[in-house]
């Protein structure tokens, strides 16, 4: 990861937004960008954080959560978006609300060529699968964008994905 001059506060901002939105179930496939947020959610007695084997499980799980009256959020890296394509038919056909927070790879200073295929197509894949996609590229705007996306998801019963730009998340310096 690049050296940061200021402490990273946006994961904490997302956690505070989860509290405002009354998110009770957080499903995730671990990602370096979401490390702190996952820890915060695991430590919160009002949240259940569930580690998945594949991202599509989270789409189904949070649909079940909504059936039972819980709000949820799904955390993943951009490489996981493609794993969700057919499962997103569940959200589209049933109008399940779905809030997805996706940390981007393959778009800003990426060193690993294998990340490009999915990173460069994440937005289009999600849009073609019926999701509303919103991007955030400034760390100080992450909380605001996630709150707006959450309100849209839970108030209009839609799948809404927030793409958190790789420029915010940071990249590995491959020059050394």
């Amino acid at each position, binding site marked *: 990861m690049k050296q940061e001059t200021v402490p990273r506060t946006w994961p904490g901002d997302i956690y505070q937004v989860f509290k405002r939105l009354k998110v*009770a*179930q957080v499903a995730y496939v671990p990602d370096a960008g979401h490390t702190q947020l996952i820890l915060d959610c695991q430590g919160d007695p009002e949240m*259940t954080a*569930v*580690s*998945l*084997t*594949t991202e*599509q*499980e*989270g*789409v*189904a*799980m*949070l*649909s*079940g*959560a*909504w*059936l*039972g*009256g*819980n709000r*949820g959020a799904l955390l993943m890296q951009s490489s996981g978006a493609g794993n969700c394509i*057919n*499962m997103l*038919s*569940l959200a589209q*056909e*049933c*109008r*399940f609300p779905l809030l997805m927070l996706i940390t981007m790879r393959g778009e800003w200073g990426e060193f690993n060529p294998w990340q490009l295929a999915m990173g460069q197509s994440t937005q289009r894949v999600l849009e073609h699968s019926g999701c509303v996609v919103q991007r955030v590229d400034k760390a100080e705007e992450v909380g605001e964008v996630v709150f707006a996306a959450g309100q849209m998801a839970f108030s209009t019963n839609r799948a809404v994905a927030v793409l958190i730009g790789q420029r915010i998340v940071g990249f590995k310096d491959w020059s050394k």
Partner: protein
Amino acid sequence: MMAAEQNVSGTLDRRDVVGRILERRGDALVVTGLGSSCYDAGVHDHPNTFYLWGAMGAAAMMGLGLALAQPARRVVVITGDGEMLMGLGSLATIGAQKPENLAIVVIDNELYAETGMQATHTARGVDLAVMAKGAGFTLAETVRSEHDLERAIAALYETRGTVFLDVKVTSQRYPMSIRLRDGAHIKNRFRENLLGQAAFD
């Protein structure tokens, strides 16, 4: 052309099995997988049943989300062997999470009945109950006889923890039972019945 007879190991009748499970549902919440399991459960339609008509592989994980949201209610997932095989990772996720109120019943005819009766992996020796046991389910077993079925249904509703039943059934196919297939309607009906006015918050 579809084969007239299929050589499968099960002797139980799928509609009879699902009927006997559902007649004891009480206030349990039910999620079905797509295809025959949906039609079997549809014979006993109830607003506390959510029917999947697609999203193959979703049933078990929908059950987990529902079980976590409604810890005081028993959640029963009824699905097929093909659908379960497409979501095998869910067994590991559920085994790791260990909800106390989730049961999965696989109506295992060892066939992909909807697509032309092709054999699934369970016809070739793959043991789903052993996989569930390995994932950490509290109770996991294969049910082959009437006698075992009675006992297993009781355990399904009474066991505190995670239950997995792989019920071996014949290759008998039945017609679709319900016409209700609009996903948003099935969801709204379920939520309104379960949550009342809070469904619209």
